């Protein structure tokens, strides 16, 4: 029979090979899917994975857009990964993202139309604080009452979504917007805008902060005592207790950081690429970032690649839709398959496949 044996340490070889294997498998399975829809599978795969990067017509625009799309995913995933490593399960980043955007945009809109240098920094502060505060709810409930943070953070997403609807239809509605839902466009309010920093690069403050966060996370995890505690708490909570790790402090720290980063991501998105608070402003970045965190194996470098890969399938998927008339649903299913394969083949990194009779069974 076939069985799996846990490796003592993750295989370096498979760490590198499994993502490639997963992408290859997805190309095969996706090709079958596209062929079944009567589309040219080779063209479809090429459009999704190649054209955004190298197609002469699009690439100069699409390549920077990868950063725009990947930025919030990477920023959120970096924070989440810290918690996931410590066994602190914040799956409510979507809610923290919304609240961060609302707080940040709220500050900006409150100052409108004042032009001053301090408006945007204050918005950034408010965005981060908003996300942090929203994440503190599950953190405090967890440390005070031992309430499961997975569930509380998830439930708070729905609450945040209702707040968002209420704000875009009420308090933050653009008084000059013809009565439609949605706030003023912050892109058009220079003091509050988060514009492209260098033209044609897609680089905005959110992307910059995402990279900074990645580097900080790397240093924290590998060079700092707190990072050691995080890893220890995740691997063996009991050992961590003996080593004097304060579990409650860790919970507050991990939820706080991931909430603040999600809030920042929301603020940078609402003041930059999205421009305004609207009912459908949140596009599931907070949930997608969870997937990104795991695809990146909770490691900063992995998260960078995973975020870019996700962004690639989004942008390539869009190209495939209007170039080849592949339905949006097929792209969605294709992304789902990619995630399945990536998550599935990862088993090879941590386990060895054995064929034969188990000795101790």
């Amino acid at each position: 029979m076939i069985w799996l044996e846990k490796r003592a340490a993750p295989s370096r070889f498979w760490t590198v090979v499994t993502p490639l294997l997963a992408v290859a498998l997805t190309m095969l399975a996706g090709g079958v899917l596209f062929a079944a829809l009567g589309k040219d599978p080779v063209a479809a795969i090429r459009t999704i994975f190649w054209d955004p990067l190298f197609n002469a017509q699009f690439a100069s625009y699409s390549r920077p857009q990868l950063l725009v799309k990947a930025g919030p995913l990477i920023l959120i995933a970096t924070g989440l990964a810290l918690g996931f490593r410590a066994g602190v399960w914040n799956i409510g980043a979507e809610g923290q993202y919304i609240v961060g955007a609302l707080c940040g945009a709220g500050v900006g809109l409150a100052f409108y139309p004042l032009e001053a240098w301090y408006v945007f920094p204050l918005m950034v502060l408010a965005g981060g604080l908003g996300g942090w505060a929203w994440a503190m709810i599950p953190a405090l409930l967890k440390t005070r009452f031992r309430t499961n943070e997975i569930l509380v953070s998830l439930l708070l997403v729905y609450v945040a979504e209702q707040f968002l609807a209420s704000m875009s239809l009420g308090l933050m509605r653009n008084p000059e917007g013809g009565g439609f839902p949605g706030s003023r466009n912050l892109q058009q309010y220079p003091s509050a805008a988060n514009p492209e920093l260098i033209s044609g690069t897609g680089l905005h403050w959110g992307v910059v902060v995402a990279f900074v966060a990645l580097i900080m996370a790397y240093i924290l995890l590998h060079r700092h005592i707190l990072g050691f505690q995080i890893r220890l708490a995740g691997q063996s909570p009991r050992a961590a207790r003996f080593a004097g790790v304060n579990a409650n402090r860790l919970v507050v720290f991990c939820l706080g950081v991931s909430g603040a980063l999600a809030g920042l991501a929301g603020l940078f998105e609402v003041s930059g690429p999205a421009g305004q608070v609207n009912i459908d402003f949140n596009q599931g970045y907070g949930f997608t970032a969870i997937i990104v965190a795991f695809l990146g194996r909770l490691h900063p470098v992995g998260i960078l690649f995973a975020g870019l890969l996700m962004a690639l399938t989004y942008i390539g998927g869009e190209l495939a839709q209007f170039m080849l008339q592949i339905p949006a649903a097929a792209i969605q299913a294709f992304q789902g398959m990619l995630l399945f394969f990536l998550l599935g083949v990862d088993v090879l990194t941590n386990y060895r496949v054995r064929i034969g009779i188990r000795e101790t069974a």
Partner: protein
Amino acid sequence: MKLKPVLAGLALALGLAGVAAAADKTKVGFIFVGPIGDGGWTHEHNVARLAVEEKFGDAVETIYQESVPEGADAERVLTQMALSGADLIFSTSFGFMDPTMNVAAKFPDVKFEHATGYKRADNVGTYSARFYEGRAIQGLIAGRMTQTNVVGYIASFPIPEVIRGINSAFIHARKANPDVQFKVIWAYTWFDPAKEADAAAALIEQGADVILQHTDSTAPQAAAEKAGNVITFGQASDMIEYAPRPRVSSIIDNWTPYYIDRVQAVMDGTWTSDDTWHGIREGMVKIGEITDAVPADVKQAALALKDSIASGDYHPFTGPLNKQDGTPWLTEGETADDGTLLGMNFFVEGLAAEIPQ
């Protein structure tokens, strides 16, 4: 993740086939906020897209993208369409307004048509339909046919477009039947079949025997059919599968003539930016067949109303009309100007419902 080398190898193996876009074809792009199979708003825009393809054959190539979220993604999709060589792009949701303006500024040679917005530029025109004209006809039929004198209205969001429709329907229902009352439910969604079904059921339970809807699914139709003695109207698309009862008529968004006209203008080089607000006369608002479930005299009155609106003899918002709080709005014979209608944020006198702040 060493993606690039692998892809590079793959692409070399495949050979970099260029994009096969013949230069002499006019390329028309569409971006949709929902899936083309939503059976309502986006569906009808896509029907018009197909009609454009059929009309012009090989002279035109259409491309589209469905389910585009409003905001950052819309801007990217629009840019990519412009980059792919589109000559004209229809951006079919209000929320695409600012992205459309941004992209249009970067591509001065590409023409943009934005639905239901109010911002224009040299290469951005806007268009919308006077759906309230259709609502007037629904109101008349509703007022004449209700037995309980209670008409239920499933509204989506408290925005001028929706408020205008409610007012128009109410004014004409009252004209036909002074005792009629409207019950309004704000669903806070354009599309959530289960919620729409529940809303219809709630209205029916509270005595409504006519249901008007400003949401896109057929769920209210099915709820009415189940309840029995209730009539409904198709919204956005014809919803003919529920005829002759409960669906007795419908308002159909008919973008086909306009789209063909604008594509033709681009091909001829005569396209200019303008603000279009078309109604029954131009065929942008179509009234679906009034079925035999409607008594002959009511049907006749409805068709007469339709004709007088189409000919321009009658405007659905003609005074005397007061606002809900009793303040005068239009004097005898005065008609509402488009500016007021476009920003309408009040109910007319007699409506018992409230607009959420």
